[in-house]
Every structure is written in structure tokens, then in C-alpha cells.
């Protein structure tokens, strides 16, 4: 819970920094840190609190980007679900696997974003420029995903250590477990 909350705050700060960087960097070179955090949380933390944090990050992204409230949140929840599902059947602990997963999900995220936007009335623009931008962003996600995963893992292990003394430790009762 604390880890999810800490990562949510981290994600918020990352989004704010991203917004600042977007003023001087081309859109293709602005990595989607929130999405990477969602993927990393799904891989490392799992559970309801991480899912809630992902949705909350999505809502925050909607507020900050001006998208319809819930659009990013929905995609983040779906990304969390897809990552969790993939994590059950695939070995995603290696950096290469994390990078591949992040790249694929970034591509899907971009496509779904424009698809949902078009369903909500915006013009669907899928051209070469859009494709190039998406591919660049996916490549950037591939590079950054292992780092973000490592960061999330570090935060998670730190919070686990802090939480550990407060957890109830089962005392040996001398009875055999049933």
C-alpha cells in the first residue's frame, strides 16, 4: 500500500516533469513515465493498491493533459491488467522482456488513445508522422522500462522493509498446522 502510494506520488512528479520537458522536447522524445510505472507496478507489486494507483495516475494524466477524464485511467487499468496477465504466463523479470513488453504496450496505448479519441468525436489521424512518433516513443519506452522497473523494485523493497516490523509474525505454538 505504501509502495503504491509512493509510486503514485513519484508518477505524479514524473508527469509534471514530463509536462515541463514537453515545452522544449518534441512529443516523440517525451517518454510516457506514467505508463512505464503502471507496467512496473503490475510486474513488481501487483495487487489492488497498485491497480488503484495506476487508475489514479491515469486520472491525473487526464487532468494534466486535458483528455476526457477517464481515458488515460482506462488505458492504464487495461495496461495493468494486460501486464499482470502476461506476467502469470511469461517470464518478465529480464530487462529484455520488460523492454519488449513496454514497447508493445506503448504502441498499443498510443493506438488505443487515438482510437478512443476518435470514438469520442476527434478526428482519427493515423499517418506516417503519427506512426513514426509512436515507434520512437515505443523505442524510448523499451530503453527506459528496465530502469523504471528497477526503480519500482527498489521502492517496493524499501517500503517492504519499513513495513516488515509492523507485520504480525506468527509465533510458534507447538501445534502442527492443519
Amino acid at each position, binding site marked *: 500500500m505504501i509502495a503504491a502510494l509512493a509510486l503514485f506520488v513519484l508518477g*505524479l*512528479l514524473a*508527469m*509534471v*516533469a514530463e*509536462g*515541463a*520537458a514537453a*515545452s*522544449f522536447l518534441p512529443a516523440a522524445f517525451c517518454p510516457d513515465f506514467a505508463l512505464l510505472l503502471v507496467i512496473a507496478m503490475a510486474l513488481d507489486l*501487483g*495487487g*489492488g493498491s497498485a*491497480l*488503484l494507483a495506476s*487508475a489514479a495516475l*491515469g*486520472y*491525473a494524466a487526464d*487532468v*494534466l493533459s486535458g483528455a*476526457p*477524464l*477517464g*481515458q488515460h*485511467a*482506462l488505458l492504464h*487499468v*487495461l495496461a*495493468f*491488467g494486460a501486464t*499482470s496477465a502476461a506476467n502469470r504466463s511469461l517470464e518478465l523479470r529480464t530487462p529484455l522482456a520488460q523492454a519488449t513488453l513496454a514497447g508493445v504496450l506503448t504502441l498499443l496505448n498510443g493506438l488505443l488513445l487515438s482510437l*478512443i479519441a476518435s470514438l*469520442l*468525436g476527434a478526428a482519427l489521424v493515423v499517418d506516417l508522422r503519427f506512426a513514426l512518433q509512436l515507434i520512437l516513443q515505443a523505442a524510448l519506452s523499451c530503453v527506459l522500462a528496465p530502469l523504471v522497473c528497477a526503480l519500482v523494485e527498489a521502492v517496493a523493497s524499501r517500503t517492504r522493509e519499513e513495513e516488515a516490523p509492523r507485520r504480525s509474525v506468527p509465533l510458534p505454538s507447538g501445534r502442527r498446522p492443519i
Partner: protein
Amino acid sequence: MRDLLYRIRVPLLFVALVGLTATTMLADRRSLPAGAKDLPLLSGALLDVAVPLQAALSAPFDFVRGLFRRYVALTDLRTENEQLRSRVAQLEEENLQYREALIASERLERIDKMRGEIDLPMLPAEVASRELSPWYRSLLIDRGRANQVHAGMPALTEDGVVGLVTAASPHAARVMLLLDRQSAVDAMVQRSRARGIVRGLGAEELEFEFTAGSGDVEIGDTVITSGLGGVYPKGLRIGEIASLTAEGSHLQQRAKLRPAVDFGRLEELFVVLWRSPTLELLSGDLESPAPAASSGSGPGS
């Protein structure tokens, strides 16, 4: 049942969140056509926190970007400055050429006017060198006897009298300037017709010596050749009265004369291919007369 719900709590939460997000998205979309709306408290608070944070984070980047832009602008400015300097130099050069052409055109006009006024054959000549001795004021020209230039022929420019050819070789000639101490020209004031003699002083000024009773002389009067000296044709401009001096007897008075010709800038002149009959008689034995001279008379004698 409770254990089951606990076990599927995450998938349930997932489904609930998907539903919630989709609902809020659609609701948010539906509310748009109704017009602008205020953000909910939480979203508003998030924006209120994010905007100053973003501004603070952007500030260093904006600063760097501003510096970069200024640097680029300065670089552009430097390049533009160099281009403009080059352009200015080119235009100055063109301007110089135009001015030269204008000056040449004006000069040609004056020459044409002079040629129209003086009905005598003339030969253009270039000044080859000047006399280096301070005692004599003369120069060498690139025309000589081969060009029908002989001693005794007047030399002038469109501005006025330059002097007299005093010696001629086959391809060069020496011209004694009006400024030379040996030079003396019979002259008169154009306005009052007061007659006198213009003498060289060896300096940049001339002296006009005139008889007191011959007419009045004022500063600024133009002095021209009288044609009576037997050397220069009549009516050639010599200079202007610059000052009147009180020296001299009551009969003879003197005035300083500013030459019409700028001798310091003399590059070209015209030799009048004409010699007065007096000079013809004096030098007839020494030199063969010029064809122009043998053909007839000039306006003066």
C-alpha cells in the same frame, strides 16, 4: 463466499475500475457539448499543484532555451552583420563608380561646352609628371611634336588657362604653369574690362597688376585673358580676384588672384594647337609651324 471474493478481489477491482473509468470518460465527453465546466475539486487541486510545479521545473529549461535562442540570434546577427558589411562595401564601390561616372560626365559636359566656346583645334594630353624644383612651376605632358604640339601653344582645361608649352620633344612637352614666376599673361576683368597683367608668384596664388584708371576691380571678379599678349586667345578664364592689396603706386595696383584651375589636381589638359602670329614670327626659324597655326588666325593675337 468471502474467501472467493477475497481471492478474486483484484479481478473484481479491475472490472470495477474499467467500468468506472469508461463511465467517467463517457460522462466527461457528454458534458463537453454543454459548454465549459468547472473541474471537480480533486482535479482542480491537482492542476493547482501541478501548474506551479511545472512552471518551476520549466524555468531552468526555459532559461537555457532562452540563452540558446539568444546565442542563435546573436550568431544569426553576426552572419547578417557580415553579409550587410559586405553588401555595404559592394554598394559603396558601386556608389564610387557612379560618382566617378557622374564627375566624368560633368567634366565631359564642361569640356564640350569649352570646345563649343573656343573655336580652335585642341589636343587632349595627360600630365606625365610635375616639376620637382620649388623655383619653377611646370609639368610634363605626354604629347609632343609628333602630335603637333609646339612651344608657345597655350594649355588649358575646361576650368581655365593652365599655362604655356615652353618646350616640346617628339613625344613630350613641358608646360609652364601660370603659377611660375616667369609667367605673365595680359588679362582683363570680365565685368569692368579693367586691363592688367597676371603674374605667377611661384605659389598657389597669382597676382593681378592693373592700372588704377583702367577700371574698377572688386573681390570676386573673374579675370580672363585679353588676347593682347600675343600668347593666349582672348576670353580664357584665368581666375577670380581673391583680395586687393594696398601696395603699389597710385598708378599701378595689385590684387591677389585665385586660379580657376586647381593645379594640384591636374591630370589632363588640352593643348590648343594654335600659336599667335607673334610667336610664329619669333620662332619660325627654330621650329616648323603647326598645321593648325598655319591655317589661320585665332580669336586673339
